[in-house]
């Protein structure tokens, strides 16, 4: 943003008058984001298509017709993560290119609302992505029945998605106004995603096996706790730090 260089640097964060409450602002922003996505369909169809294509590529790369256990959990998580990266890359592009940041900063609203709204937006994109990708995975590659695994899978994916959404939003905001935004985003995000992959894949892999115990979804609590703790810690950190990215 070229006009920034000549402006005087503010020494402290500007105090915003909270004329509009946080959740109302979040609601308004969220509605705008989802409307834009519904009208332009820039992110979610691309992400879903990418996931399905990746499954096909995995079939040829691994030379297997069906996978289960660790391999299945790994393929699922890797594909979901890379599809999520696509969404992360696009998350703030419209705001950065079309002055959405400036407009938001001028409004008398709590700045953290943008963070919450963007996290919820990315979360919504991920949920729709998974509604497409998981059945596709079950159809194309999974060698075990999906039904009994569904409960544990949904729980793990929910917790993992929150982590991906939080980290993805923070990283997207950092990368969008730099020179190499499409490259820096994934480079920053992927190492940060590793604990999510660890927790998510280890949690899901006992579910995706043929000889599955009927009844209780046997997801080890340990991994769900790891994911939950990660979400909490980084959710708080990202919430606290996001404002600093929005200044100027």
């Amino acid at each position, binding site marked *: 943003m070229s006009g920034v260089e000549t402006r005087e640097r503010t020494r402290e964060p500007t105090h915003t008058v909270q004329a509009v409450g946080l959740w109302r602002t979040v609601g308004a922003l969220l509605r705008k984001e989802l409307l834009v996505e519904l009208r332009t369909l820039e992110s979610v169809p691309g992400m879903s298509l990418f996931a399905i294509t990746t499954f096909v590529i995995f079939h040829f790369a691994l030379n297997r017709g069906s996978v289960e256990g660790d391999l299945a959990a790994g393929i699922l998580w890797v594909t979901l993560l890379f599809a999520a990266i696509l969404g992360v890359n696009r998350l703030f592009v419209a705001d950065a290119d079309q002055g959405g940041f400036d407009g938001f900063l001028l409004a008398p609203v709590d700045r953290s609302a943008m963070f919450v709204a963007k996290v919820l937006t990315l979360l919504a994109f991920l949920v729709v992505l998974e509604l497409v990708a998981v059945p596709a995975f079950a159809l194309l590659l999974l060698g075990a029945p999906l039904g009994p695994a569904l409960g544990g899978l949904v729980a793990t994916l929910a917790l993992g998605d929150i982590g991906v959404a939080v980290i993805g939003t923070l990283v997207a905001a*950092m990368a969008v*106004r730099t020179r190499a935004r499409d490259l820096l985003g994934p480079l920053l995000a992927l190492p940060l995603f590793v604990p999510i992959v*660890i927790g998510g894949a280890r949690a899901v892999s006992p579910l995706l096996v043929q000889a599955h115990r009927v009844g209780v979804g046997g997801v080890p609590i340990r991994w769900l706790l790891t994911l939950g703790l*990660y979400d909490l*810690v980084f959710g708080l950190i990202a919430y606290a730090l996001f404002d*600093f990215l929005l200044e100027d």
Partner: protein
Amino acid sequence: MYGKGLRTLSISTAVAMAVSLGMVFFYAPLEAEQGFLQKIFYVHVPLAIIALCGFVLGGLLAIQHLRTRDPRWDMRSYVVIHMSLIFAVGTLITGSIWAKGSWGHWWVWSEPTLVSFLIIFLLYATYQPLRFAIEDPERQSRYASVFAITAGAFVPTNFIAVRLSTAYLHPRVLGSTSNLPGAMALTFLVSLAALALLFATLCKYELTAKHTRAQLRALRRRLAGETAGATPRPRSAVPSLQHVTTLPARASGGPAL
């Protein structure tokens, strides 16, 4: 003045390193299981510990920067992270050498320290490109601080997560640091202290050098300000100290910050 305690610090570092090397090779007993190879422990583990503490320290310094907006904190954060990255590379290399000596492979996935360090290295390797990709110095410092804080919080999280994932697979390859007999524990502590001093000395050295460069640039701007147009500062990942030199700031003629 950054260079004030540098001489004392570097002399104590040299002495401590000499003492620690002496203790490693002449005082610490040979370990029963791994024999002479175990001596790598006294350089690999302190490097790891110091690198990790350095990354967390970089995050803390970045918090100070965001609170006070003083660029000097950003400079300290930058230097500490840079040095920790170098120590992390040293950890990876020495750990790899140890793995090769112990197991015959240059890389093992079952050693959680090495795996965690690989991930952390990949993360912090993006610090410099991130800085370089932002041209406005103030925004560069701010974004870098946000990154340093996030990554600093990530370091312990990552360690826990990786350790959890390997805990039930294999026993530790390179041995743990608990249950050390007295002589080895003492040698380890001395090595840790020596490498910590080395870290501090190198950081201080680096800060002094950067400050000197900044003072030189300010001097050059002051002298050239009236005759020729001052040369604008080229794009750089290094935090700028343009207004914290001992010279009074120019009212005009310098590049706008």
